[in-house]
């Protein structure tokens, strides 16, 4: 399986001091568009958003709110979290359009899908 997607790290938005001197309009045009983000809560042994639709480039963050550890594992080997204990998070950026099914490898009856639109 080709790993066609890469993890992205957020860069703290930095504005040059000079940028502050620019007009608001100019600043808007110079700043990169804010990366899209979405989240999925894991609670009561379910992925609370069963099917989540996002645009390509969106970073999805899963957060485990259960007292029991879970994982987030792609059906097709596209992404795989480490074990997420209570409060732990896992993020993945979906660069390309497609449908991505996933499950918890500890409790495989827990399933979800991310639908990525171009």
């Amino acid at each position, binding site marked *: 399986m080709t790993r066609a997607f890469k993890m992205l790290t957020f860069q703290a938005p930095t504005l040059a001091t000079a940028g502050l001197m620019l007009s608001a309009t100019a600043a808007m045009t110079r700043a990169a568009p804010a990366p899209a983000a979405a989240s999925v809560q894991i609670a009561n042994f379910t992925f609370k958003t069963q099917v989540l639709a996002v645009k390509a480039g969106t970073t999805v963050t899963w957060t485990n709110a259960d007292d029991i550890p879970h994982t987030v594992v792609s059906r097709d080997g596209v992404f795989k979290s480490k074990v997420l204990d209570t409060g732990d998070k896992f993020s993945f950026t979906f660069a390309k359009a497609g449908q991505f099914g996933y499950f918890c490898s500890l*409790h495989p*009856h827990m*399933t979800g899908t991310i639908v990525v639109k171009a």
Partner: protein
Amino acid sequence: MLDDMDGDRRGFLKCMAWAGTGALFAFDGGIGSSIGLDAALAAPLKRAAAAPFTFAQISDSHIGFNKPPNADARATFREAIEKVKALPQRPDFVIHTGDVSQLSRDDEFDDADQMLKGLGLPVFFVPGEHDMLDPDGGKAFLNRFGKGSIGAGWYSFDHRGVHFVALVNVADLKPGGMGNLGAAQLAWLKDDLAGRPSSQPIVVFAHIPLWTVYADWGWGTDDAAEALKLLARFGSVTVLNGHIHQITQKIEGRIAFHTARSTAFPQPAPGTAPSPGPLKVPAEQLHSMLGVTDALFVRGRDRIALIDSTLSA
């Protein structure tokens, strides 16, 4: 037997709800029986005098768990071990039916290992899904507790005429599924059982129940039917599981199924809560509500009885 179960229904349901400490099994000729450790300590096994041997089951120690209702799963595991050590009839060995650890961390496995060594008894393990969480997907568990096992950790052994089979149904789980044995393990089981006389008592142990207790919570094993088919010709089969942190029992043909309590925390009865997460009873209740398991099975064509009651009942 159904009448007996109904007669003790109240006690049965009561004991289903709470965490316990383990179960003791005795083989008495063709008759096997089990009794909760607390009951065994309070009133020594009447059947023990004639029993050729006993063994104890401990399950779901979840070493490292530290949330309600149990801030220290190590402490309750130590208590369970002390109860085994204090038994009037020393068991020949102990089986641990999985979820030794909470997160497969080395310190969790090490603490469990050190505490169990205090027993001075052989301990036979199968992994639970919590024991598969190291980066190598279970190697940490196998290196410590699975020496000499095959595949993901399965094996068998004979003890005083009884054949014990340890199965692993927590490896390579499939999306949307439940527990899974897999083709390789089923092929091994077929070979392992081939040629054995149908009169030989069989004890199978695995973490997740080998029958479907509650599919909505994944409490079952997808391909268990194939294993049970291989076991169907034997006159006496006892299946011991953990995973669901409460006692449930079922008898199907000559196969008696039994799940053990956890030493760490109870889980809700099937469908009685939004999820199978820990049942958050007050910590002081955890100890006062330990229950009794009294299960007995009869070889051959005789009816099999598995009866639970509580200590206070």
